[in-house]
């Protein structure tokens, strides 16, 4: 079965989700990856949303973290302030495996911008803002979804909405952030990126049909591609689940 790059991204996202663990999910493609994981290898994965909706089992693609589709079979619909406390306490107890985020710009250390391009005081392009991303990036490990373009993979983000590893191994401590958690992976239409001991992003997996040169060309900072292995293509069964059950109307993939 043929598949698109976006579908490959959804599959890669789903692979970041393990059974029986708890994840904070944001808007967009992560919702697809999570729904796919729940229908394939991780039926007991639990999903938490910044709206206070916990552990639902969406049958149709939700378009927002507030979508009524997330309420289906949910454990609880908390007032939002309960999410605030739970996010911090559960993360500190190691009960939140990771949070999923997206953004407009990212730098080599996984610092993420979802606020504006240009000077914050007079932006060239204004985005929707942090949403719950800042809190998730502060307290949890994160998996980040990005469009892979040179103008988005930049040496320095114009605005750091969600702190990553800041500027290296000592970055988070120097900023007063919990130091033992941060960006874990970045997933783009070209591959999967992870962070080394120096806390810089490197290419870990290359998607089928993509060359390391393409990654270098589309990244606005020096990127190590020497450690990359080919990503496993999605199985027929997983693709079938994605196309027929998770996103049959191609709302997101």
């Amino acid at each position: 079965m043929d598949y698109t790059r976006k579908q490959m991204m959804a599959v890669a996202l789903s692979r970041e989700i393990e059974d029986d663990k708890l994840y904070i999910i944001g808007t967009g493609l992560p919702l697809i990856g999570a729904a796919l994981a729940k229908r394939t290898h991780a039926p007991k994965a639990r999903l938490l949303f910044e709206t206070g909706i916990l552990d639902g089992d969406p049958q149709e693609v939700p378009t927002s973290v507030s979508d009524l589709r997330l309420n289906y079979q949910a454990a609880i619909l908390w007032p939002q302030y309960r999410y605030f406390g739970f996010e911090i306490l559960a993360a500190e107890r190691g009960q939140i495996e990771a949070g999923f985020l997206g953004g407009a710009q990212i730098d080599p250390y996984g610092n993420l911008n979802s606020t504006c391009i240009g000077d914050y005081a007079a932006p060239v392009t204004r985005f929707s803002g942090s949403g719950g991303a800042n809190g998730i990036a502060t307290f949890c490990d994160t998996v980040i979804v990005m469009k892979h373009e040179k103008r988005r993979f930049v040496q320095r983000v114009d605005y750091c909405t969600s702190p990553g590893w800041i500027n290296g191994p000592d970055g988070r401590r120097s900023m007063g952030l919990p130091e033992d958690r941060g960006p874990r992976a970045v997933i783009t239409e070209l591959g999967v990126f992870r962070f080394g001991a120096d806390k810089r992003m490197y290419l870990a997996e290359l998607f089928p049909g993509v060359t390391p040169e393409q990654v270098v060309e589309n990244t606005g900072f020096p990127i190590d591609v020497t450690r990359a292995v080919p990503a496993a293509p999605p199985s027929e069964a997983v693709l079938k689940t994605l196309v027929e059950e998770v996103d049959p109307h191609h709302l997101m993939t």
Partner: protein
Amino acid sequence: MKRGKVVTAEEAIRTYLHAGDCLALGGFSTNRRAYALVREIIRQGVRDLTVESGAAGGDVDMLVGAGCVKAINISYIANSGFTMVCRRFREAVEQGKLPAEDYSLDVQTIAYHGAALGLSYVPVRNMVGSDLEHKWGISDEQRKDFPKLPAKKFILQEDPFHPGTQLCLIPTPRIDVACIHVQKASPEGICRIEGAEFQDVDIALAAAHTIVSCEELVSDEEMRREPDRNTIPGTCVDAVVPIPYGAHPSQCCGYYDYDPQALQEYDRVSRTQEAFDRYLEEQVLISHEAYLSHIGDEQLRSLRTDRLYGYAVGLRRS
């Protein structure tokens, strides 16, 4: 049924919301936003509002586009899945016409909760180390011209009880008026929110005046029969506006789904001020009844939520 606090949207907004007020709006992005009340605010041309929005949607964008907003505390503004960044807001900020201060959504959530608890500020560990800490949208100096904003975005302070940790002291908003849309309300103002309440109970409790629009007006006796299902007491509510489809085009749990056609149309018309102004003329500056007949009975029926699933199963969204 007795009249109690039941009024029209026109009376409610005219009585309680004034130019220059701090306004908080309920719901989340495309779920249970108080659209009918917002349209009435625009009809009455209430100006110079300081808006506390939480996860705002097209309703706040319409207020911005209609020139009602003087400043905004913001963490998110999108018709998620339809418009990723609301366009009147975006243009106003890019053109330097709308002073905006960024927080993160969870911080706004806890600030509203703090306001409902009567607290002056809430100490949080969020925002530290990011540009939400380092960059301010509205400076101390500018804030002197905005009496509804606190004197500072926040104060950074070491935790006096557990030294070594930096805290952001986030001021809680002084909300003049909260507008929320609920499923059921009674003449004395008892409210029942079904589905996720988001931060609506907090802003309703924190506000000096709360205006509630509802899908159904239910008697006080009926509401008092099952008090455990009630979410806001009448003491915290000033006006009750029965207005079916008052959250359209956003969702209202147990009643209707979002309206993909209307949200896609808003995505188009909000691209330019000219098209937006025409939309105001045609779909906002008209009565709620005229608005609903413009949407059409058949379309509204297609949005009805399924009893088992809680949304409109198979709703065409692309």
